[in-house]
């Protein structure tokens, strides 16, 4: 029971970190960046390659993955989304889906289709025993990273100047421009932060479930998007709560109901929540959407 709860929270924490990328981009650019899940996959591959082929230590590999993903995120935004800033939201959505397939197939060409086993970077660290349940180091790191990221982002958006600019852009793009805020820069920055977080999520995901394939990011991407909607898309605490709830529901459904129905139950809960709270769990209470 406790073991399932911990597993659920750790899986949910990874979902939450991915969900942040969706929720921030949606909050500011009002678009669903479906290529986000595939940025995670790229992050996984970059850290895999730097550890296996270049022999980098794990922290350096994570840093490199973050740099590559941040650059990738900004590039995607510049090349694919910026020209469509004034286009209909449907056009942007289709572009995002296209970008997702582009990244998957590019990975297929570069890294091949054979699954790779991600090295365990916490191999030498013993799991902690807690009330009869074992907490693996990666679970602990995922939970702690999630909390740190959440606190840091909340402080960033409420205390710093660029953070405030982000909130302003999310409230009203036109007014923000009139107030002298560089909207394009702010949007690029959002993509950069989201993609950097995707790299962290990618490394955590691949360490916890070490198979790396070009499609590795797609299912967690969809689940994290669900988590973002669940918690109220556009809201940072919403992404965290949504992600953790989703992870816990998924693990419990698999443990106590049925492993085949687990995914159906997860999405079923989303539907029920959306019927009663169309803006998600925290969608209404939080006014500033970042």
């Amino acid at each position: 029971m406790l073991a399932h709860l911990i597993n659920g929270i750790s899986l949910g924490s990874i979902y939450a970190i991915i969900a942040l990328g969706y929720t921030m981009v949606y909050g500011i650019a009002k678009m669903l960046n479906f290529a986000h899940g595939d940025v995670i996959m790229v992050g996984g591959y970059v850290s895999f390659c730097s550890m296996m082929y270049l022999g980098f230590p794990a922290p350096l590999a994570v840093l490199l993955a973050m740099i590559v993903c941040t650059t990738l995120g900004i590039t995607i935004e510049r090349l694919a989304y910026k020209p469509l800033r004034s286009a209909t939201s449907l056009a942007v959505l289709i572009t995002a889906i296209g970008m997702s397939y582009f990244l998957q197939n590019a990975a297929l060409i570069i890294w091949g289709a054979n699954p790779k086993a991600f090295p365990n970077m916490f191999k030498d660290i013993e799991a902690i025993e807690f009330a009869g349940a074992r907490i693996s180091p990666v679970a602990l790191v995922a939970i702690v990273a999630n909390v740190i990221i959440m606190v840091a982002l909340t402080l960033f958006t409420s205390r710093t100047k660029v953070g405030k600019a982000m909130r302003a852009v999310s409230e009203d793009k036109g007014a923000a421009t009139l107030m002298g805020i560089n909207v394009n820069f702010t949007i690029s920055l959002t993509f950069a932060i989201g993609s950097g977080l995707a790299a962290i999520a990618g490394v955590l995901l691949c360490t916890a479930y070490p198979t790396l394939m070009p499609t590795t990011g797609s299912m967690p991407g969809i689940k994290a998007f669900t988590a973002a909607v669940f918690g109220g898309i556009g809201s940072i605490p919403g992404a965290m709560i949504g992600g953790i709830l989703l992870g816990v529901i998924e693990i419990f459904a698999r443990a106590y109901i049925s492993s085949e129905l687990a995914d159906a139950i997860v999405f079923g809960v989303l539907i029920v929540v959306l019927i009663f709270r169309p803006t998600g769990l925290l969608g209404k209470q939080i006014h500033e959407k970042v």
Partner: protein
Amino acid sequence: MKKKLLSLIMVGAMVLSMTACGQGGNTGSGNTGSGASGNGALTGTLKLGVIGPLTGGAAIYGNAVANGAKIAVDEINAEGTGFTIELQAQDDEHDAEKSVNAYHQLQDWGVQAIAGTVTTTPCIAVSAEANSDRVFMLTPSASAVAVTEGKDNVFQLCFADPNQGSASAQYIFDNKLATKVAIIYNNADAYSTGIYQTFKAKAAELGLEVVSETTFTDDTTDFSVQVGDAQSNGADLVFLPIYYTPASLILQQAASAGYEPKFFGVDGMDGILTIEGFDTSLAEGVMLLTPFSADATDDLTKNFVAKYNESYGEVPSQFAADGYDCAYAIKAALEFYAAKNGGLDVTDMSSADLCEILISVFTDPDFSADGVTGLGMVWDTNGQVNKQPKAVVIKDGVYVGM
């Protein structure tokens, strides 16, 4: 202008459809029976097709089969007996629809017999087509009963699932490997479910206690629940009738949960040591039932392992051995027929005629084939093979016979 273009396209489409019809018609008629050359010899060139996943999650299997078959074909062609084989391998990415497309591509090439398909789910789809087209199929490794059931032209070189499942249970029981068994299987996969069912039936018959049965589906990466269930029920052996990719995740997650039972797999586990980046120490002690072990000391195996290693730089897996044996079994069958009927020239023989010949030989009680996966392999009329299974255990990152 637009009309012109349209009419051009129409003409193109008509021409294409006509040629397609032509090819379809050919398979039915044409060369009838043995092109007897009189001396009981087998001559001519056979167009042999291989279908399997050359890319994608199960690519290790498809490539191993294609490589193994290639070695056999090269050996046969080098013999200079007047009989040669032309080999073509098509990729199906372990997908039923793509597999049928690959099959059609081989037909366009003029394939006469098929060594495939490699994986079960695509094989069920392709074998249904091949059955109505009358194309002979000898699958190296698709082990479900549904592959051969009701299709007289489809034969298996590997054990059928019921045999794998019951043989595993029998082996575990005979060698007293466990008192409490857990099973984790993929219930979205015919292969996995098939083995699970027969394992369970046999285990019940033998009185082997199954304490945990959990399932997963193709997208699953989190096995904490399945592993936890086996652990909390005190299973000392986990039976994994699944492919190696999820198996690698289960091994890793069991290790991080501090759970160290014995693991027992079937032929789908073969390939786990070749995953790039996989920590092979996790697979230490994993047992699997396989008809082929690369460390066997008979001449056939030694020759095959040496050649495979020379060409591809790795130790051949069971799938490579299956592919190798497929080519030789088909050759043996054709030779058997040629010897009985005063010779056979297979060049340009229609696939339908060849199909009938091969069916008659494979179901002939006097016919048996030798290979690296077993000596004296015989087939029953259901298309299932009968040979002796072996178990291997992984020690220091290599398979060792048990």
